């Protein structure tokens, strides 16, 4: 929020004035009020592996993160370029595989990858769209300096927090939205519905029937699934509600079985169809892949998109963007060592204390090593894991992330953040101005995941 000369950074100037005029006790009371709003709305999540895993809140910090319109435009162009490249990449590797034949990506990296689905070879989803919803994880290291951390092209979560954070801020501090021209995010559910409907199967007549597929009320993100279905005005279904009948996916309604045209699934590929993937899955719909391949249902995101946000593929993103768009990437990739390559592994082992090491298929901040904050013992233990399964890991340098202020006991203090803007892909690419800002609440910490003690903030993109 503050420049080196202690003047507020430009997008924060109006907010800073307001903040300076606030009574601190009132803000603390507001902070508690926000928590109450979240709890009564039921915006909770379950943490796996905790004994009392009932329902927890993600801490909300009431100082917004503010991005200028100018900086956002550059960022949005970079995201759009990247998302277009991701879709082109998916279409290519499931068809002609030109990028492999051109020698830009090793064949085995794609075809031996668990996230590559042979069932998708030669099949083109309706509208040619693979990744209907993308949540690109981005960090800022300085003015106009952004790095993409992850592309999240499977089932990115957290968008309900983006919406509820804004809703809560508007409820608590309406005056701020008079003083600042903040670009709206509230129309996301409408845009999502339009976007999904526009990609219904070709044979669909009338208004497409859309449904959100959830693993059920015990899933950590159930609140979000229900929230999105509710805001879009579509059905929220579980695998057991659906059945394949006469070549269509149908749900059991009070009037009998009714067909679904578009399924926004929030279950992983593995669980989608027990006949095709994991036979023990109780979350999926037996036979849905046959319906899909016959062109009678749209699945968003398409099965097999995981290959594009795989952490090993990630390191090739600069090549991928250039190959399909013919231009240099606008957004930086974090330099990445692939531990499967012996020379990289050697380097990583020698520099473990400076690096962040992640599992190739990991998510949620689990199973990673943050070198600079890890103890010697932790590093040594991790080195053993690395040596036994090098192909399972990649390593990246720790970036000097920019910080934003949060409210703490003694006033405000800087903390590291990342940003996940949400992108909708149909015949056009739409990026919601803002996104989810996750903040590492522990001083000095770089881990922002909610499962690891991270919090969230409202994210403002200003009109200018």
């Amino acid at each position, binding site marked *: 929020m503050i420049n080196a000369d202690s003047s507020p950074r430009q997008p924060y100037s109006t907010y800073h004035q307001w903040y300076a005029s606030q009574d601190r006790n009132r803000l603390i009371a507001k902070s508690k009020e926000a928590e109450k709003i979240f709890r*009564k709305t*039921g915006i909770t999540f379950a943490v796996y592996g905790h004994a009392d895993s009932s329902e927890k809140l993600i801490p909300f910090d009431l100082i917004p993160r503010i991005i200028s319109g100018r900086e956002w435009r550059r960022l949005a162009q970079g995201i759009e370029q990247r998302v277009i490249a991701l879709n082109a990449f998916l279409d290519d590797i499931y068809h002609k595989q030109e990028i492999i034949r051109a020698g830009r990506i090793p064949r085995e990296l794609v075809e031996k990858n668990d996230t590559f689905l042979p069932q998708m070879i030669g099949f083109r989803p309706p509208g040619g769209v693979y990744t209907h919803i993308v949540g690109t994880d981005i960090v800022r290291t300085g003015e106009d300096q952004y790095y993409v951390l992850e592309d999240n092209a499977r089932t990115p979560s957290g968008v309900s927090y983006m919406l509820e954070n804004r809703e809560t801020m508007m409820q608590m501090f309406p005056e701020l939205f008079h003083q600042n021209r903040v670009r709206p995010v509230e129309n996301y559910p409408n845009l999502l519905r339009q976007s999904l409907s526009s990609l219904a199967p070709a044979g669909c007549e009338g208004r497409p029937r859309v449904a959100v597929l959830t693993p059920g009320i015990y899933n950590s993100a159930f609140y979000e699934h*229900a929230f999105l279905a*509710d805001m879009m005005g579509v*059905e929220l279904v579980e695998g057991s509600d659906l059945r394949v009948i006469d070549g269509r996916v149908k749900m059991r309604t*009070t*009037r009998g079985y009714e067909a679904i045209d578009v399924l926004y699934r929030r279950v992983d590929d593995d669980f989608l169809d027990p006949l095709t993937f994991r036979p023990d899955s109780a979350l999926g719909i037996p036979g849905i892949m046959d319906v899909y391949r016959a062109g009678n249902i749209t699945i968003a995101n398409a099965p097999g998109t995981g290959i594009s946000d795989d952490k090993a593929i990630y390191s090739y993103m600069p090549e991928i963007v250039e190959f399909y768009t013919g231009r240099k990437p606008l957004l930086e990739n974090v330099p990445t060592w692939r531990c499967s390559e012996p020379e990289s592994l050697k380097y990583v082992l020698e520099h473990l204390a400076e690096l962040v090491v992640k599992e190739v298929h990991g998510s949620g901040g689990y199973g990673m090593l943050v070198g600079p904050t890890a103890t010697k013992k932790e590093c040594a233990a991790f080195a053993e894991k690395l040596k036994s399964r090098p192909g399972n890991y990649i390593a990246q340098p720790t970036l000097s992330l920019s910080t934003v202020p949060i409210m703490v006991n003694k006033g405000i203090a800087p903390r590291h953040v990342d940003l996940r803007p949400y992108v909708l892909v149909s015949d056009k690419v739409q990026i919601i101005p803002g996104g989810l800002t996750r903040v590492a609440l522990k001083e000095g910490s770089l881990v922002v995941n909610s499962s690891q003690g991270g919090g969230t903030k409202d994210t403002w993109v200003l009109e200018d």
Partner: protein
Amino acid sequence: MLGRTANGLYWMFRYIERAENSARLIDAGLRMSLTRSEAAEDDWDGVLQSADVRELYDQVHEGLTSGDAIDFLLRDRTNPSSVMSCIEAGRNNARMVRTALTRETWEAINECWIEMKGSLARRAKTTDMPEIIDTIKRRAGLIRGAFHGTMLRNEIFNFSRIGTFIERADNTARILDVKYYVLLPAVSAVGSSMDNVQWESILRSVSAHRSYGWVYDAELRPANIADFLIANGRMPRSLAYCYDKLVSNLGYLAREYGERHAAHETAEQTLGLLRSQSIAEIMDQGLHQYLKEFINQNNRLGREISDGYRFYQ
């Protein structure tokens, strides 16, 4: 609508209704024990029977004391009809059918659960009971208010209302049956102040001790009480009222769906009987027998609705 959603709505409202009913039964029991000096355990025996959990209670507790009975009715998780069990089950169903509810309705049930989980975390002291009962009633009222004030009158509304009235009819019939049965041998002694307390407790269990006086003489007469709770179409917890609502909500569904099920016949037939039979006729054929049949028939109606509208869990 998903058959699972319809089922969830139906049970959500059955549980909320039951929670309120359990609270009211405790209230009536407390009232009785305040106005009597002895044999309070017998009163709680009647209360547990009215809640249909007498046998379950014996599986958990050695003997009958008012403290154990209250705790069992209020917060014992092994008792599926305890206030806390019902609120939790209602809230779980609400969470599952979240997309069918308005934000106001969902928040009302969620806040009810949050508050009751806090205030029922420990065994309640006798001195706290009035406040606890009051909170339950107020919370249930807020849920009802949010529901009526904000929900679209569509099939979602109808399935919810059907759940409410199936449960309520069952509760009222059970209360009347148990209490009346217990009290009947003493009919000749009606008029003594002690018996008045007993009779009043029936009315208190259905929140009708004031309204009774508006409809009948001030004096409590067994036949009038039975008439009030069975046949009075204006009394919101009477069997006739419940069935009037069941028939109209089923009627909306029939028109919207363009088809009728066995449930429609059953509900209409029952309502017809409730309207045409006089209380004297019912008493002649035996009130206990009558209510037993009614409860069975009410259960059957529940099953027919569940089948007709393809409920599943």
